[in-house]
């Protein structure tokens, strides 16, 4: 195939996949009061306004909290699990792997509903806690998968060498294993963070007064308002995600791990 055809096909595909982002970036720059394209005049007012909307501030904080601490909790559970499966003869290891990876198979909306109905309502657990637990469980499979990948690339005899030089099992893990899977752990954190931050279905049913994740809040906002602020916010979030992934790729070679 010749070069012209190649670039024409790629150009069209990329326009379809990435063009819409350029459009929301521009739509957010509107000076008018309702969403339109091309925008009515150019201003930064909507980009500034999104920082002053109180519900956005609260839900952004909530999403940040979930993404950071949910991912940390998932790593806290996932790293030992991945290590255990990689290094020990665990009875029923395949079963454990299946259970731990089940959150990938079950659509999030169902999990959110089930947790609302059988955890939040009967036990009176707060929605924020339920959200945290749900996000942790959701990220767990990614944490296990990425960390397992790193561990598979780490030779077991390095740990044995550490044992012979005086380490305990635990000591060998801290001194030799962890420093060498740091990249994988960091990649798992970034993947978990982005996944949690962008997650909608799990959080659909798990929202209450003042407790909402940012994406849910954006959907709720756009049901009532037809102004460009969600466009501005979407553009900012897109830039944030892309920035994180770009930095991760540059400093870490992110794509090696996921």
């Amino acid at each position, binding site marked *: 195939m010749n070069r012209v055809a190649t670039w024409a096909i790629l150009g069209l595909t990329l326009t379809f996949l990435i063009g819409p982002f350029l459009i929301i970036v521009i739509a957010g720059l509107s000076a008018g009061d309702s969403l339109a394209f091309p925008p009515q005049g150019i201003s930064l007012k909507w980009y500034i306004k999104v920082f002053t909307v109180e519900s956005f501030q609260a839900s952004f904080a909530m999403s940040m909290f979930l993404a950071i601490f949910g991912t940390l909790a998932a790593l806290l559970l996932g790293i030992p699990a991945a290590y255990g499966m990689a290094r020990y*003869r665990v009875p029923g290891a395949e079963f454990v792997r299946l259970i731990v990876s089940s959150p990938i198979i079950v659509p999030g909306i169902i999990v959110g509903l089930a947790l609302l109905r059988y955890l939040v309502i009967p036990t009176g657990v707060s929605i924020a806690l339920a959200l945290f637990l749900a996000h942790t469980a959701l990220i767990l499979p990614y944490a296990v998968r990425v960390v397992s990948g790193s561990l598979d690339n780490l030779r077991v005899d*390095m740990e*044995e*060498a550490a*044992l*012979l*030089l005086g380490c*305990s099992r635990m000591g060998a893990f801290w*001194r030799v294993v962890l*420093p060498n899977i740091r990249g994988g752990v960091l990649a798992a954190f970034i993947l978990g963070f982005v996944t949690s931050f962008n997650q909608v279905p799990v959080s659909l049913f798990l929202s209450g007064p003042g407790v909402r994740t940012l994406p849910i809040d954006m959907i709720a906002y756009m049901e009532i308002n037809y102004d460009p602020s969600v466009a501005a916010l979407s553009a900012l979030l897109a830039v944030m995600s892309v920035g994180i992934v770009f930095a991760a790729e540059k400093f870490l070679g992110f794509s090696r791990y996921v």
Partner: protein
Amino acid sequence: MSDFVTLADLTLAYGPTVAVDRLNLSIAQGELIALLGPSGCGKTTTMRAIAGLLPPKSGTITIDGRDVTRLAPAKREVGLVFQSYALFPHLSVYDNVAFGLRLRREPDLDTKVRGGLATVGLADFAARLPADLSGGQQQRVALARSLVMQPKVLLLDEPLSNLDARLRLEMRMELQRVQQETGVTMIFVTHDQAEAMALADRIVLMKDGAIEQIGSPEQIYTAPETGFAADFVGFETILRQDEGGALAWRPGAVVLGSGPHNGTVRGASFAGERREYVLDTPLGVVKADTPVDVPAMKIGQTVAFDLPRDRAVRLARA
């Protein structure tokens, strides 16, 4: 003191699979022992058990009079140089060598690390990372890392297998020198009989999880006791005898061109100074060679040969 290290009725298993069956072995202090055998013979498994990385199913291991069978690897005063070297990639050469000493809170750390690096000729490489070193250098770091701990026994897993021919010779001399200087008892594992012959004071030849023969390189080379041992050291023609036992000849000991027997040439190959032949004979397969100045024989050709009794070794079993 010929029982510095003893293995008594040692049985080792991976899950239900028995890899080494009731092995008995005594090693003297300062000895350089080779565990020799093909892959799967249990030599590496035995070494791992001595290091404490594989708990024995039964039997005991003692080192310097102390029963270490149930001790953790760290408490055995044993060093191990892994086949892959197993250096810590995130630590510098210096920190790799200092690793065990730090855990031990060694007061004299810097002197010992520098000394260890000097011993293996890597004093100038302290700040490098393992990834920046050649294979041979990495192995010497691994050696230094074990030696600075002043182990009672140093185990080496296939120490020469990852090196090219020139480095192999260098490392062989290095190991002998270290052994002379430190007097440490060394046990190394290898599948290469030439390597074992060249390095070891005593060779433990293993097969299928059991010891086939123990002896000095000369003993094993000149007086193998079994068919397996004989084949391993180059007695390639092995004939079972009616009265039990067997006789074995090296290819050079077989007389070609005259003699009471006849055989058909099945394979012929040129090997520099010799020509090597495989003969099909009524007695069995015979492997022979001749100097190159003897004219070559063709495949399919019938040839007379003799198996002189005085050049055969007598084996207890084929």
